[in-house]
C-alpha cells in the first residue's frame, strides 16, 4: 500500500502541484495580503495567456517536436487582435482561422519532409514577427471591447483567471487524456511505428496537434490583448521559452508523448507566480527570469532523482 503512494509515477504527477503549492504558500507567508481577491487577481494577471501558450507548446511536444516560434505567433495574433479584429471583426476572424490552418500545414510539412521542427519553427518565428510588424508597425491598437470585457470580468469568490484555468485544463485533459482519439494522438509520441501498424494516419495526427497548437496560440494572443488593451509585435516573444518551461514544469517529457495538460497549466501559473514571489522577497526583478530558470532546473533535478530511484528498484 505504502509502496503505491511512493510510486515514482504518482510522485512525478504530483510534482507540478507540489511546486505550485510551495510557491503559493511562500507568497502568502511573505505577503498575507496577497490572500485576497484583489491580491490573487494581481498575482495571476498574466497567467491565462501564458497558460494558453504553454498548452500550444504542449501539443507540439506531444508529437516529439518543439515550437520555437510560438512567442512570435502569439505576438502576431495580438497585433491582428488590436487591428483587424477590432476594426473589421469578420476579416480578423478569417485571418486567425488562416493562422490555425497555417500551423496545421507546418506540421504536415515537418512530417512529410522529416524536417527538424526547431529550425522550421524558428524560421517561422521571423515570418510571424514580420507579419506582426506589417499589421501593426508601431505599438498601439485597441482590443475589441468584448475581449476586454471578458478578460476583466469580475467573477464571484475568486478571480476569473482561476475559473478559466481550471476549465481549460479540464477541457484539454478530457480531449487529450480521456478521449478515444486523444489516446492515438499521444500514442504517436510514444511509439509512432506501432500506431501506424494499427492503421492510423500519422500525418493526420501531426496536423491535428499542430492545428491545436495554432488554436491555443490564437487564444493566448486574444486573451493577452484583453488584459493589455494594446499590443506590439514583440509583446510575447518571451512566451516561447516560458511555454517550454511550463510544459516541462508541468510534468511533460520532452519526447515520448508523456504530457499532462493539467500539469502544463499548473506549470504556467507557477512560472507566473515566480516573478511575484521574488518581488515579495524584495529581490530585484532582474532575477525574475533567472528564478524561472532555477525553478526549471530544480524541478528537473527532482525528477531526475525520482527517475533514478525508479531505475534502482525495477518493478
Amino acid at each position: 500500500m505504502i509502496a503505491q503512494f511512493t510510486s515514482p509515477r504518482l510522485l512525478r504527477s504530483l510534482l507540478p502541484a507540489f511546486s505550485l503549492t510551495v510557491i503559493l504558500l511562500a507568497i502568502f507567508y511573505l505577503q498575507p495580503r496577497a490572500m485576497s481577491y484583489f491580491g490573487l487577481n494581481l498575482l495571476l494577471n498574466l497567467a491565462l495567456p501564458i497558460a494558453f501558450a504553454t498548452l500550444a507548446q504542449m501539443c507540439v511536444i506531444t508529437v516529439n517536436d518543439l515550437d520555437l516560434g510560438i512567442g512570435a505567433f502569439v505576438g502576431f495574433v495580438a497585433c491582428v487582435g488590436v487591428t483587424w479584429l477590432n476594426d473589421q471583426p469578420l476579416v480578423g476572424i478569417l485571418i486567425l482561422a488562416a493562422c490555425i490552418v497555417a500551423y496545421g500545414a507546418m506540421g504536415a510539412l515537418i512530417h512529410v519532409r522529416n524536417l527538424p521542427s526547431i529550425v522550421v519553427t524558428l524560421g517561422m518565428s521571423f515570418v510571424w514577427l514580420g507579419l506582426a510588424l506589417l499589421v501593426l508597425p508601431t505599438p498601439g491598437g485597441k482590443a475589441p471591447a468584448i475581449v476586454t470585457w471578458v478578460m476583466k470580468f469580475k467573477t464571484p469568490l475568486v478571480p476569473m483567471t482561476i475559473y478559466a484555468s481550471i476549465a481549460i485544463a479540464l477541457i484539454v485533459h478530457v480531449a487529450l487524456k480521456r478521449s478515444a482519439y486523444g489516446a492515438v494522438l499521444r500514442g504517436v509520441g510514444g511509439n509512432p511505428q506501432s500506431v501506424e501498424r494499427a492503421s492510423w494516419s500519422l500525418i493526420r495526427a501531426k496536423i491535428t496537434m499542430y492545428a491545436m497548437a495554432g488554436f491555443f496560440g490564437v487564444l493566448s494572443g486574444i486573451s493577452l490583448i484583453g488584459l493589455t488593451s494594446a499590443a506590439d509585435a514583440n509583446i510575447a516573444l518571451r512566451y516561447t521559452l516560458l511555454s517550454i518551461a511550463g510544459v516541462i514544469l508541468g510534468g511533460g517529457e520532452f519526447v515520448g508523448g508523456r504530457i499532462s495538460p493539467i500539469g502544463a497549466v499548473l506549470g504556467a501559473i507557477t512560472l507566473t507566480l515566480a516573478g511575484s514571489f521574488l518581488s515579495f522577497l524584495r529581490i530585484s526583478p532582474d532575477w525574475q527570469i533567472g528564478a524561472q530558470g532555477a525553478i526549471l532546473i530544480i524541478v528537473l533535478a527532482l525528477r531526475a532523482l525520482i527517475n533514478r530511484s525508479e531505475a534502482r528498484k525495477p518493478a
Partner: protein
Amino acid sequence: MNDMSKPIVKLSSVEKSFGAVRALDGVDLDILPGECLGLVGHNGAGKSTLMNILAGIQKPSAGFMDFGGDGDGGGGGERSSATAANYDVSEARRQGIRCVFQELSLCPNLTVAENARIQHASIKGWNWRGRASELILAQLDQIFPNHGISADELVGDLSIAKRQMVEIARAFSIVDQNIRLVILDEPTSSLDALVAEELMVHVRRFVDSGGSCVLISHLLEEVLETSDRILVMRDGGVVDSRPAAEFSRQSLVEAMGSVAKDEAVHGRDFNSKRQQGTPYLSIDPSGAQRGIAMNAHKGEIVGLAGLSGHGQTDTLVNIYNKRRRYGIDMAFVAGDRQSDGIFPLWTIGQNISIGSIRNLLRFGLLDLEQEAKLAEQWRQKIAIRTPNVNDNILSLSGGNQQKALFARALGSPADTILMDDPMRGVDIGTKQEVYEMIRAEAEAGRTFIWYTTEMDELKHCDHVYVFRNGAIVADLTRGELTEQKVLHASFEEAS
C-alpha cells in the same frame, strides 16, 4: 464457418532478397484452420522474414499469397485473395492476422486500456475506456489468470514480462474483426515457466476452437508439445514439415543442422594456446556467476555462438567499453553496418582511417598523405573493390563496406579485435578472403573475439562459447565442436 480443410493462408514460392542476400528462397507454406504450426530454425533460416511477410510488414520479392477464405473484413464477406503487391499491414488485419513480435509494439506512455484502444479503431465514443479495459482484462484473465495487471497502469511502468503479457492479450482480443491467425514470435522469451505454460494452454484452446497459430520459440519442448505440425527452416527454405508427433528434440535439432556433416573442422591441426599460462582476458558475461566464464588467450580466435539476441552483442560492447580498464587496445567490427559501423557521409578512406587516427597525426594534425597511404594499403590488402578510396562509402556494395570496417579494425594498432557477427549479408567470396586474413592476423599474435550466427564460421575458432539468456552455457574447444552440440546448447532444455 470455415472449411476445415481449406488453408486460410497459402504462400507459394515466396522469395525475399535484401540486396545480394537471399533471405527466403522459394518458400511454400499452408496454414490450416484449427492448426498450431511450430516454426523452428537456426539463425538466418528465414523465420522472421517469413513472418514479416505474412504480417504485411515486408513485401516479398516474388511469389504468391492467397488468403482463400472469406476475409472477415469490415462486415463484408468479399472473397479476398490478396496478391503480394497490395498486401500490407492493414490488409493483414482485414484478413484476421495478428502478430506478437519480439520487439514490443506497445506505446509505453499509454495505459494498458489505451493500448488496446489503439489496436481497435472501433472502440470509441462514450465509455470507450471502460469497454477497452473490459476487453483487455477479460483477455488477460482468460490467458494469464494471475496476471495482476490493472487496465489503467502505464505500460512503461510495467515489468517486461507484464508488457509481454499485455501484448499477447491484445493480439488475441476481438472486437469486430474475427481473428483467424495469430503469429507468436518468441512469445515466452521474457515469461517465467509457469506463465509460459498458461500461454501454451491458451494457444491450444484457441486452436481447438478453430483458430490458427504460428509459434516460434527457442524452447523446443514448447514447440513439440504445443504444435500440431512443425516446419523446419534452413537457409531461407523449408527443409522439413511433418506432424509434431513425428519429431523428437533430437530429430528437430538434426533437421535444423546442415546436411554437410562436420568434417574439415578437425582436419586443420589445432594447437590450443591454453597451455601457456593465464588468459589475458577473462569475463563472465552474465555478471552473476550463472554461467561459464569466457577466457581469451593471446593469439586465439574465440567464437561466441548461440541464437541471436542472447547476450553476445551486449557482451562484446561491454568488453569494448571497458577496454581502458582492462588496459587492452581493442577494435570493434560491427555487424549491423548501418547502425553500428558506417559513417555514411565519409569516403571509404575516411571510414578506414578513423580507427587509427591517432597514429596518423603529424604536429597534431591528421596527415592526409599517411591517411591515403593507409587506405590504399588496405584497399589492396583486403581487396576492396573500388577504383578510388576517395569515393563515398555508400558507393560500395554491402560486402565491400564490411571489408572497409575490417580494414578499420585491422589497420588500427589494436591487438584485440571484437567482431559482432560481421559477415551478415556478405557474399561467399568475400568471406573466404576475410577468414584467411583473420587466421593470418591471429598467427601474428592478435586476439579475436568473434560472435557469429553462422555455424561454418565457428569452425575457424579455437574456442567456442555458446550463449543462452545472457550467460555462457557451453565451452567447446575446436576439437569438441560439432553443430549438434552448439544447437543443443542453444535451445534450452525443459526445466
